[in-house]
């Protein structure tokens, strides 16, 4: 009876209840959209980190990353490579020679990281070829070619075929230089990365570094992200003297974002629903004040305080959650649409997004795993919103209420 009465009561003033339901629908949509956008942005960022920057796992000499000394080559690299090829979860492998150096042109110079790569394997691991916006990549007929990021090219006023000089220290600590020409300009979602990195052929860099046939880094792509920690531990056991790092360790800021963004999303939802709670409280108070005599009559007839409290509580919950299915459905439809077509946020500042390593096209994902939490927040909002009106109803004395 209480449930029937509560449900019918919310339809006594249809317009008022519909306004509250619309508020819940809009609030819920806003909250879920925030979750979906964050999820989409982070998934995009994680994908970029893994598939365009560092891979799932990287292997170095344990001293290499201290100051990127070219002499710390990956000893027994070919043995490691042979072992890696036996692991079925490993899908692709790239070998990189790396050194820190200086890029000089006629207009100036910049500190950079020079990556010696093998095009085919690098394209599998970091999809470098897909990021090329000018030029075609390394030409097998030409020597000493370099691929540079757009931001660096703009900064150094470099164009295709422009000449540049790379200066760095070789494995014997001798200063060496090499002249290269720009074969292609690439652009990724991570502008700082584009500004810092330059790619050359591995054999050419190795010759200059005097480490022919060697390399400093093995980057690995796995079949799925969930296997990262397992494979990392397995490799650490196999090669205890090497530095084995997952993308989480190499890009800790991304991991931090993944771990903290949920908290921020929930805070935003709670703020939205907190504001909404005042609307619900107002509506319920009006409903109680309008029904003072009726409440007095029911109390006179023998409706006890617990049942009166329950009536207001259930009514508030119905009022709050009645709009929830529609809110969820609208959110799902809109999020799914943008998940397929992408939400272009370039109008908000492409450079700004890129400077933080985010793509300007977001593919929001419906946060299905968080719907229960969102529903709990909605119900808690309803429960808290019902308290004040319920207390107001309980305080009514039947004799006084019946006089009104």
């Amino acid at each position, binding site marked *: *009876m209480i449930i*029937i*009465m509560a449900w*019918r*009561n919310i339809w*006594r003033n249809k317009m008022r209840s519909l306004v509250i339901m619309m508020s819940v629908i809009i609030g819920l949509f806003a909250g879920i959209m925030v979750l979906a956008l964050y999820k989409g942005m982070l998934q995009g960022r994680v994908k970029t980190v893994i598939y365009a920057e560092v891979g799932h796992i990287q292997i170095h000499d344990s001293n290499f990353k201290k100051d990127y000394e070219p002499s710390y080559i990956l000893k027994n690299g070919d043995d490691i490579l042979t072992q890696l090829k036996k692991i079925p979860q490993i899908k692709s492998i790239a070998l990189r020679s790396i050194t820190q150096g200086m890029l000089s042109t006629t207009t100036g110079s910049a500190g950079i990281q020079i990556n010696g790569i093998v095009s085919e394997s690098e394209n599998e691991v970091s999809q470098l070829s897909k990021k090329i916006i000018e030029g075609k990549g390394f030409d097998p007929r030409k020597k000493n070619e370099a691929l540079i990021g757009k931001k660096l090219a703009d900064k150094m006023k470099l164009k295709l075929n422009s000449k540049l000089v790379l200066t760095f220290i070789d494995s014997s600590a001798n200063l060496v230089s090499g002249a290269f020409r720009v074969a292609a300009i690439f652009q990724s979602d991570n502008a700082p990365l584009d500004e810092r990195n330059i790619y050359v052929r591995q054999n050419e860099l190795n010759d200059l570094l005097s480490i022919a046939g060697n390399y400093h880094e093995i980057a690995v792509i796995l079949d799925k992200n969930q296997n990262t920690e397992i494979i990392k531990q397995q490799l650490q056991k196999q090669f205890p003297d090497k530095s084995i790092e997952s993308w989480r360790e190499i890009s800790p800021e991304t991991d931090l974002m993944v771990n903290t963004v949920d908290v921020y999303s929930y805070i935003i939802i709670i703020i939205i629903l907190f504001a909404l709670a005042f609307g619900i409280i107002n509506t319920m108070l009006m409903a109680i004040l309008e029904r003072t*005599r*009726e409440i007095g*009559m*029911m*109390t*006179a*007839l*023998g*409706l*006890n*305080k617990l*049942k009166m409290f329950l009536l207001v509580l259930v009514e508030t919950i119905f009022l709050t959650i009645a709009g929830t299915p529609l809110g969820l459905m609208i959110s799902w439809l809109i999020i799914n649409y943008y998940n397929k077509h992408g939400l272009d946020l370039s109008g908000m500042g492409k450079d700004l997004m890129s400077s933080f390593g985010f793509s300007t096209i977001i593919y929001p994902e419906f946060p299905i795993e968080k719907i229960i939490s969102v529903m709990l927040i909605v119900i808690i909002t309803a429960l808290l919103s019902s308290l004040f009106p319920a207390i107001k109803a309980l305080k009514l004395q*039947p*004799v006084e209420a*019946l006089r009104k």
Partner: protein
Amino acid sequence: MNTVIDAHNISKIYNKENIPVYAVNNVHLHLQKGEFTALVGPSGSGKTTLLNLIGGLDKPDDGKIEINGVEITSMTSNQLIDFRLKNIGFVFQSFNLIPVLTAKENAEFIMQLQGINKKEREKRISTLFKQIGLEDRLNSRPSQLSGGQQQRVAVARALASKPQFVLADEPTANLDSKSAANLLDIMALLNKEENMTFIFSTHDQRVIERARRVITLVDGRIFSDTAKVETDIPHEITSNTT
């Protein structure tokens, strides 16, 4: 005699701090099972206040009230709610029914609160709605019923849980003559068939004429207490005025 209501020297005073107003002033009243009693008097004479006190909706400032030998004046508000639920039926002047419930659901309301099972509720509702002549309006909402029909449903609700007595506060005040007469016929019938005790507060001469006992209140005191000679329901007049 089976005493249902026993009020001993009850008083209700408003505005105690400044100029005290005695809404009910030292009233002593006994009502027996099966009485059909009207409380009459001018506006402000204390009829509704006396009904509220007897019905446990309000507490007297002085005196005590016993219902079937149980003192209700010392009960807490929660105990009173429970006591009212089990012992007293109410018919109010207007806005008597819960608008979101059908006639049947309104009549079932108290029985549901009492935890009476569905089968028993159905049986009782069927009997009562036949008695009030609304067996074809069971599923109508109050807004679909006339004022008279609503009051009949209210009477059915008051009687549904078989209370000790029914208190009716000006039940015919908002009804036309025909509806009022019809309602009184029904209450008289239920009084006779179920030996239900009815106490009305009223201004309505038609109700006064049908009552078997008429208690007149003036300024919160019992001015007169008259039992009609022709009544076939025996009762004992023990009220006094002081």
